[in-house]
């Protein structure tokens, strides 16, 4: 059932958030440390496991794929509620700092990502990401 996929996603999400808050608390900072990251890793591992056991049927995957497909629309809604006015009213210092840091960061990216296999990507397993759903049985 579709809800199984959504529930798997929700359980991973909540556990990840819990670990993120826990880690933040242990480190003594008032922030979630990597909660989304933990949730993603958990989901990846769980999906691999269920796939291997052949327990991930088409409908369950559709529950996951739907939310994955809603990602871009949600990001657009997110952009529509940014505080753009404050960013522009922050004055010259804020604008220069924001622009310079982005440009410098862009310049550094190739230095750190060197040695990677550039060609490897294009054929990566994209199931579930767009509309296609993986490993249907």
């Amino acid at each position, binding site marked *: 059932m579709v809800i199984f996929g959504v529930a798997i*996603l929700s359980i991973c*999400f909540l556990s*990840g958030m819990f670990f*993120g808050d826990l880690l*933040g608390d242990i480190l003594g*900072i*008032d*922030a979630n*440390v*990597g909660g*989304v*990251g933990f*949730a*993603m*890793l958990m*989901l*990846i591992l769980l999906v*691999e496991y269920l796939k291997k056991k052949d327990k991930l049927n088409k409908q369950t*995957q559709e529950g996951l794929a739907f939310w994955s497909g809603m*990602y871009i*629309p*949600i*990001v*657009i*809604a*997110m*952009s*529509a*509620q*940014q*505080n*753009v*006015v*404050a*960013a*522009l*009213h*922050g004055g010259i*210092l804020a*604008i220069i*700092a*924001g622009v310079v*840091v*982005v440009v410098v*960061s*862009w*310049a*550094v*990216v190739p230095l*750190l*990502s060197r040695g*990677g296999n*550039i060609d*490897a*990507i294009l054929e*990566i*397993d994209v199931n*579930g*990401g*767009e509309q296609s759903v993986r490993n249907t049985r």
Partner: protein
Amino acid sequence: MEASRVLEILGNVLKNNGLIVAFAIVGLTMYLSYFMSNKFTKGRIHGSAIAIALGLVLAYIGGVVTGGEKGLSDITLFSGIGLMGGGMLRDFAIVATAFGANFSEIKKAGVNGVLSLFVGVILSFIVGVIIALAFGYRDAISLTTIGAGTATYIVGPVTGSAIGASSEVITLSIAAGLVKSILTMIGTPFIAKYIGLNNPRTAMVYGGIMGTTSGVAGGLAATDPKLVPYGAVTATFYTGLGCLLAPSVLFLLTKAIFA
């Protein structure tokens, strides 16, 4: 029935079903954006890049009209945008993108990803401090807060309030982080080919270096949706790491240098 009554009923329907209104608006915005992308740029500028830019324009209009902080969603009729694009659904959908990710790629790029997080936080901090210096700030608290804001607009205020910065400096730090986030959203698809941003490994490094989750998430979505999970998986650790380093180690170092 009078026309004004009909309008009133329509207004109530929209007001009472905010999230659904948001789905419709975003869907229409995306349709328009993909149409413009194909028609006017022959697909060279990705539809989602146009949609994100349109979203930011709408956010600006919303901010000017209402004087609020949440862009378009401060207008009552569009409050559902706030729910749809808010932290909960955004993070939920980001986690869902991991469904399409490949764990062995993440493992392979793991070390670079972690390294890039530290480089990203420290580099942003240094850039922020240098620019604050150029603008005449000399005290360690203000320098640290602006440096932290240059990391992300969450690290700035968290750090600022932890070390007792003035509210003027905290506001400045938030603004710097917002500019970074918005520029990352808009600029990523244009810079991608120059920095080799077309594979999972680089996407993970990119997430770690840029750090702004909304910026990276939006930017990669407009570049290549396949890369989103890889960038997001590192970017979501960045703010936490920044909140950890900025008020502690980085503040002490700044104080030692500029005391």
